[in-house]
């Protein structure tokens, strides 16, 4: 059993969490977004082997947060609130 740490609830078992993709994959803005840019946003992923910066949803509390972990060793740092992870107020 993998334990992830939600920044709001603390350490919880893996089945309470849902993977949400790459950290920093922001929705493209503006009136003209090409199909290729949309496809990159919607479908294409970094999928790194090793260190990975990701978005996860803690399904039980409903919060979305940032998680740094290693996709090979499965080590995971404690989750971070998105505002802190992306340096936003």
């Amino acid at each position, binding site marked *: *059993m*993998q334990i992830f740490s939600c920044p709001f609830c603390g350490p919880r*078992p*893996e*089945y309470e*969490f*849902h*993977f949400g993709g790459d950290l920093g994959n922001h929705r493209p803005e503006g009136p003209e977004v090409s*199909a*290729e840019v*949309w*496809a*990159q946003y*919607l*479908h*294409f*992923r*970094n*999928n*790194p*082997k*090793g260190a*990975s910066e*990701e978005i996860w949803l803690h399904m039980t509390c409903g919060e979305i947060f940032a998680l740094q972990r290693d*996709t*090979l*060793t*499965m080590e995971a740092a404690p989750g971070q609130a998105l505002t802190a992870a992306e340096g936003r107020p």
Partner: protein
Amino acid sequence: MTRHYSALSLVKEGLNNQKGWVRAWESRAPKPRYDVVIIGGGGHGLATAYYLARTHGITNVAVIEKGWLGGGNTGRNTTVVRSNYFFPESVRLYDMALKLYEGLSRELNYNIMLSQRGMISLAHTPAEMEMSARVVNAMQINGTDAELFGPEDVRRVLPIYNFSDKARYPALGGVWQGRSGTARHDAVAWGYARAASRLGVDILQQCEVQDFLIEGGRCRGVVTSRGTIRADRVGMAVAGHSSQMAARAGFRLPVVSYALQACVSEPVKPVLDTIVLSPGAGTYASQSDKGEMVVGGGLDRIPSYGQRGNLPVLETVLSGLVEMFPAFRQLRLMRQWAGIVDVVPDSSPILGESPLPGLFLNCGWGTGGFKAIPAGGTLLAHLLATGTHHDISRPFDLDRFATGRLIDEAAGSGIAH
């Protein structure tokens, strides 16, 4: 010297103390240049090399494998071959593979031990029965064999199923595909390797691709742990590591890598002579020729490159199994493992030229790559030989993610990958 495998050659070599067999495939040093280089010595890569040589007459070909042949997902799957998909594009693709599998032992002169024992995808609720009828209709319209089973049919093919009134997963019926079956997975890789090697293909094991040779915006070869190898065209069939290879070539893929687990029990007497899948319980099982129950289920929930797997999914799979087959509670598990599979948003493969011209993709098979090996090989060989799509591979090009023309088999056939 004995090359051909037959009953006669067995007798001959038996009398000769087995001294006359030649190696199944040659181990040669890399040449500095090939017409085509294929990255990945699993089933898809080796099949591609074979069809390049046999169908297209291109024999100056190398298959580059960082480990040993068939040591990745080819040796880690649960050996099921089937074509019970929903969309016409998918059925054409997987039925092509199944038809090629049906003639493969003879074609390769290598016994892949294909056993078309039939597969039942169970329905446990009236709603699942309606979905089963929909899938059967789609499969029949698409020209592959499918039958809608009722409770009596399930009783006939699965006599050891839990038919009690209190069963958690009552068997109302399901989708039957009689041509589905199992094949010995190692034999598929070894058979293609032997046939390709005999046609002149070089098979380079313990050779890792570290980078691509890019000149004038085009892929001109690969940099490997055994030196630089130039090639007119390069194909890659590296499954769960496709994103790593793509990163070296400078692009991303719509792929996330997950661990997919399987396990086998101790061997027992024959009790299960079909393949049984329960999408509701998240479990499937078949009995191997050695008597082991080969058991698998859905993906792990956490993207991973660790070939181990995690307990929660294994618990779901095994609790489903013992609920459906109470007799299996006595079984002890011998082995458990995981393979890293390349999961794509629409659960359909990616075949075609990559964003780097000269580099061609065969990836995104997710949890279902083994069953598709002969088709994946045929289609990637067509791409590498002609530079253009085969009719069957065209819908599976990478461009479908920008055009929006996805082939969503997770939604279509409910197959969980």
